[in-house]
């Protein structure tokens, strides 16, 4: 969050685009409350409705659950393109083909840097990583957020993922993408959709 808006960056071909959350009463309330409490900074929206804020005053990996969200979530590009990431069905129009539903392996049409960084294992299970400071540096713990799923594992492979698994991003609406350019939010390929009902509830999440 900066300049009083919530935004996500898309790096494409050497330049970056700033996509912003579509203006709505909910988006304004989110921006205002976080801006007043924290003055801006990174914000993570999870498909289960959790709004998480990494604490800017902590260097020990502390994150705070600052609220919840529901309803439609739409990102708007600088040129006015709209992408409703809370919609389970995303339409795309790859070059030379008619408009159709997005498939595993397609380029993700929007930014992905705002998503939760996860690891997918060969069974298709998803793990997020949490960390806390320790006497030797930090301890990182992977905790499961979605069970193994043959279709998800296959989709990951179709998207070009490695047989031993790898890094993916879970976006706010439940879409799973695989970064292909750089870890900080470059281009991404579509893997699949994870229904929010498959994910742990906010209460489970906040124990980690």
């Amino acid at each position, binding site marked *: 969050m900066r300049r009083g808006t919530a935004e996500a960056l898309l790096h494409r071909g050497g330049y970056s685009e700033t996509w912003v959350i579509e203006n709505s009463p909910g988006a304004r309330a989110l921006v205002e409350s976080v801006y007043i409490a924290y003055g801006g900074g990174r914000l993570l929206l999870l498909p289960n409705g959790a709004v998480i804020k990494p604490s800017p005053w902590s260097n020990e990996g502390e994150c705070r659950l600052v609220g919840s969200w529901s309803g439609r979530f739409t990102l708007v590009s600088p040129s006015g393109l709209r992408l409703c990431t809370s919609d389970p069905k995303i339409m795309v129009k790859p070059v030379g083909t008619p408009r159709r539903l997005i498939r595993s392996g397609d380029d993700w049409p929007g930014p992905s840097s705002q998503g939760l960084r996860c690891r997918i294992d060969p069974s298709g299970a998803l793990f997020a990583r949490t960390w806390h400071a320790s006497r030797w540096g930090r301890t*990182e713990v992977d905790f499961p957020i979605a069970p193994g799923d043959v279709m998800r594992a296959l989709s990951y492979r179709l998207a070009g993922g490695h047989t031993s698994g790898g890094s993916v991003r879970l976006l706010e609406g439940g879409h799973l993408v695989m970064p292909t350019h750089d870890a900080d939010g470059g281009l991404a390929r579509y893997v699949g959709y994870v229904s929010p009902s498959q994910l742990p509830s906010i209460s489970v999440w906040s124990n980690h």
Partner: protein
Amino acid sequence: MVIEPPLYRGYWPSVVNRLAKYSIRYMTAENGKDPNWRVTVLYEEERGLRFLAVETESDDLVSRINNVKMQADGKSGGVFYINEYKHVIVPIRSHSGNQYHYICRWDKKFKFPYRNPNNEPVTLSTCPKTEMKPNDRWDGPRPGIPYTLASGGADIYYKTPALTETEPPMLRERMTMQVQLSRLIGSAAAARAAAPVLAVRNAQGGRFYVNEHGAMFTPVVAGDGNGIDYKFCGVIDRKDWFPEPVVPAEALSG
């Protein structure tokens, strides 16, 4: 019956360039004779990559590693590492990825006979020559343990799976430790340890390797802009370094 050696309590160097590992391979000596299981290293020469076999007497080491590999994988040969504490560690495949086991301490210097592109016999070593200075090109074999110079250039860290405090140690599933030198020996000492690498790289940080002689070398963009060169950064100062991990008492020493 070979008893499985304990998990190593130190750093497990996963995801390493294949030139950064030793391996046991069945091959002949440099003269093309006497095929046997030997300690080898993959070496990058101008003509490409080739395995070099060690000429140093190392039958005990080969036999000990092969026994462990045979018991775990059902076949001899495979990768191993020797770190800056001269600990020999071997990755063994398990359901949760490679697990690193301590084999022994190895004090001998490996020497690799080699014919250079002019067909002249030379001996390569992983021990830095006394006349080497920081920023000199590292032309020798490159087995080593990867460390990361932290962004800012004032700290060094590595990541390794967490183990239990029990004896023998066990793997703590899904838990990783990021071990920062500054946390162990203080910020000033860590900055001193990092300075030689910072001088060759830059404050963005990045990967460098430390071999069994404590020599540090790091990949940088080659002077002509094509490819990667490895530059020597100096030798670690052991009083400003990660403490030596506890290992079991043993019988074999090189």
